[in-house]
């Protein structure tokens, strides 16, 4: 077993991104570029996919607005969706939002869990998803 290198042009150098594997495709979302001389990292919110079949990278243009740029986030797959949680923004602040990227519709949704307390017990009242249209070009 050995590593093999891919020559196809892909996303820029980064760290703190997430990768998710779904239906023969690797998704890369977000991350940050190496700190410059001023110590400031450039935080990313782009989304790329790598297809094993064609050994090629493709930058995805989602059908909705993208989540705020972040690095150090975590992700998992639920159904056809990639779920992203938390991370750090450009100022280094920790994030607690949950985003869902539908690989089918290419739409990012902000997930909200609404709770209330009933007799000291936490009860989920509703879940809702919001997406914003992509800014007009």
């Amino acid at each position: 077993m050995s590593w093999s290198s891919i020559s196809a042009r892909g996303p820029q150098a980064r760290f703190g991104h997430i990768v998710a594997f779904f239906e023969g495709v690797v998704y890369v979302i977000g991350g940050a570029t190496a700190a410059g001389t001023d110590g400031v990292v450039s935080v990313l919110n782009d989304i790329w996919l790598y297809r094993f079949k064609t050994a090629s990278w493709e930058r995805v243009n989602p059908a909705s607005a993208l989540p705020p740029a972040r690095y150090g986030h975590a992700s998992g797959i639920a159904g056809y969706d990639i779920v992203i949680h938390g991370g750090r923004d450009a100022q280094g602040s920790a994030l607690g939002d949950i985003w869902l990227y539908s690989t089918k519709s290419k739409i990012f949704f902000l997930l909200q869990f609404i709770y209330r307390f009933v007799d000291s017990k936490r009860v989920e009242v509703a879940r809702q998803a919001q997406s914003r249209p992509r800014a007009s070009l």
Partner: protein
Amino acid sequence: MWRSLDKLKAVPAPRYNHTIVVIKSTFFLFGGSTNSGTLTDEVFLIDASMSLLFPTKNSLQKIDKAITEGASHPESTDDIATAASGAAATSPAAGNPQSPPLEATASATVKEIKSHFEAVQSDHHHHSDTSGQGKSLVRPHNKAEPLNVGTGNSDDHSHFSAKKAQLEKELEQLKASLAAETSAR
């Protein structure tokens, strides 16, 4: 719904450099750093057996029940927290020194997961649309009225025997991982 091994934590506080692993249909969120730079060993579980956005009919009935019961306790209606805002929910029990030992909490969590899985398994009117096409993604949410459970699509009953077997297997794996987590402390 998020389940925390620490029952007082409603939703994961904002964090980074944490991990999420999906064990079959359960998200297992572990660790990370919070804004103060503090490392945390918290574990949160969330069920995504259908989709994060499609609660089952049974879970909706529980919600309806809770809302109905909550209506007779108006003092509790203001405690609403949204995970997306990152606002940690303020549990009335917060700061309770009587919090149960982790081991007991973990087994209680397993029990809750099991009962939820059983509910999923017996739920013939679940929302089967996981296509993510957007039209039905947003669930109505109105505190004043019971949520509309809806009839859903029931043409895939055979799905459930397979689902049951899968969930039972999954439960055993979860028990094992929780036992490992507990004994690691």
